[in-house]
């Protein structure tokens, strides 16, 4: 096009000779073909066919079209075991040393259960039946209370992790934004750190940190905070780069330095999306705090793993329900905060 204009001495060609390219051409078709081939190849490695078969069977069995399915049976047994949710706390009285029967702790009661045991009498070679009465101290919401308090701890881990992420990503974003970084070296270093933090799975970071800081919350929120900084640092920086340049130029023209321009011309533009990212990280930290507990980094995950390992699936069910409710409530709250900011 350019050459054409130059050749005709600045006189553009008549419109009848113009050419407006079609939105798709053979290149687009080739790209689709390549992607389809790649997906087919990968689909075989990932056993997508088997996944669809088994899922199909399970669905068919579920709606009564088929007798039974392998997946359905396995999952069904597991899910069935989660019910009923356990909310009470039950402890054998014999194991509690200093209990005053006349002054039980609040809300608790004592329950007696008859336990029948069978054993072989070595003398008579007869199987004998023995009835034993075991007493339990029962707190009707004891376990629920414990899970809730663990959830509060988990939420605290998530909050501190988020605070750490935000504090770390502010400088990372400044140095990692092309238009504010003082030099190329700082830019590359910052982007490198951000990619590194994001690429390290928090579970692995948590495992390392548990070695250093011991079991508990510290390893948990540090791991989540570092990983989250890898996410926020990237997104904060990209928003700074994409912010409208015109007001920035206006303040530069008044003699304001980089930091002041950032504060007065960029921050008001990016604030709503920053809040959205940060709330997303908080939400993610709540969910991930439950997972990293698995490696002993505190919170509800530690409890979850303990119960799972001892096959107490009713307890597991309660924990999962509480996590779900927390995430749901948090989602509602953050939706409201966002709506207010954007409106």
């Amino acid at each position, binding site marked *: 096009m350019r050459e054409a204009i130059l050749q005709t001495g600045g006189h553009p060609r008549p419109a009848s000779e113009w050419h407006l390219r079609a939105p798709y051409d053979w290149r687009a078709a080739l790209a689709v073909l390549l992607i389809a081939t790649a997906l087919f190849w990968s689909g075989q490695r990932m056993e997508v066919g088997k996944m669809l078969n088994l899922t199909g069977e399970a669905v068919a069995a579920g709606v009564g079209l088929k007798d039974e399915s392998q997946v359905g049976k396995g999952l069904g047994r597991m899910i069935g075991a989660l019910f009923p949710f356990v909310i009470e706390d039950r402890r054998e009285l014999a194991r509690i040393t200093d209990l005053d029967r006349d002054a039980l702790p609040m809300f608790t009661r004592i329950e007696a259960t008859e336990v029948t045991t069978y054993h072989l009498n070595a003398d008579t070679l007869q199987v004998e039946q023995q009835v034993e009465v075991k007493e339990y101290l029962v707190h009707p919401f004891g376990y629920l209370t414990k899970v809730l308090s663990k959830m509060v701890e988990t939420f605290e881990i998530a909050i501190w992790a988020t605070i750490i992420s935000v504090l770390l990503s502010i400088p990372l974003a400044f140095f990692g934004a092309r238009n504010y970084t003082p030099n190329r070296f700082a830019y590359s270093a910052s982007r490198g750190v951000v990619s590194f933090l994001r690429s390290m799975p928090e579970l692995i970071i948590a495992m390392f940190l548990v070695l250093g800081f011991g079991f508990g919350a510290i390893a948990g929120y540090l791991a989540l905070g570092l990983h989250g900084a890898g996410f926020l640092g990237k997104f904060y920086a990209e928003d700074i780069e994409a912010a*409208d340049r*015109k*007001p920035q*130029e*206006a*303040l*530069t*023209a*008044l*003699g*304001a*330095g980089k*930091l*002041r*321009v950032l*504060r*007065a*011309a960029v921050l*008001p*533009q990016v*604030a*709503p999306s920053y809040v959205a990212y940060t709330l997303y990280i908080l939400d993610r930290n709540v969910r991930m705090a439950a997972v990293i507990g698995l490696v002993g980094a505190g919170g509800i995950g530690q409890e979850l793993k303990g119960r799972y390992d001892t096959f107490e699936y009713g307890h597991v069910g309660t924990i999962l329900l509480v996590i779900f409710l927390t995430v749901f409530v948090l989602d509602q709250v953050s939706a409201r905060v966002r709506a207010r900011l954007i409106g």
Partner: protein
Amino acid sequence: MAAAAILQAALGTGREGQPHLSFRDLRKVYADGVAALDGVSAHVARGEFCVVLGPSGSGKSTLLRVVNGLTDLTSGQMMLGDTALSPKSLRGIRRRVAMVHQQFNLVERASVAANVLAGAVAEVAGWRAMLGWYPPELRTRVCEVVARVGLDEIHLPRRAAALSGGQQQRVGIARALLVRPEVILADEPVASLDPAISREVLGLLREAAREQGATVLCSLHQTDLAREFADRIIGMRKGRVVFDGKPALFDDRAEAELYEGLAVPSPETKEKAYA
């Protein structure tokens, strides 16, 4: 320093007639070889309302942006009072010079008040700028300038994006007036406004500048507005000054020369004119 400059500007210094802005043989060649300024020399007196005219691409924006260093010179010298523009004096000069932009350049999400306050972002203490906690005198001053540009109290908390173009440019002018600059640069400040509003906004800019004793360098495309408002007209063509004088001298012939390029004076005759 700023206070002294403001005082000087307000009271006059007894140096009227001395150039406030002076351009000596300014040359700007962009990376692609375009000479946007090709030997511009001119002087603007203190308190003058100087309009720069010229066809598109003649270098008006470039000339204005040279004054506050948004565009750096290839060669030549720009002086503001006794200070020559250099990398060292850049910050200081920028704080004495305000700019009104064609696209308004407001933070659209922020309130009118916040946009006007941002005009002082380079003046207040660092911690105040960072917290966005400006001193009470400045907030009073914001109300003053917002009223001066013809806006109302109800506009203060409104988002800039929710104003009309004319109102947004008033905010832009209020921001420029806030810290009582010595020089106001206005690059086609009314290009996106209708004729009636354009006249109002330009009148406002001229009166407000006059009250504060500020020198104005304003580029325009409307020759009728230039004749009406200018104390002085500089006509540019292809990076050169081809007209420089009182609006009364800017007749139809001068206008045709400027826009259609009839009888462009050669660089030599121009040099003689300034010798």
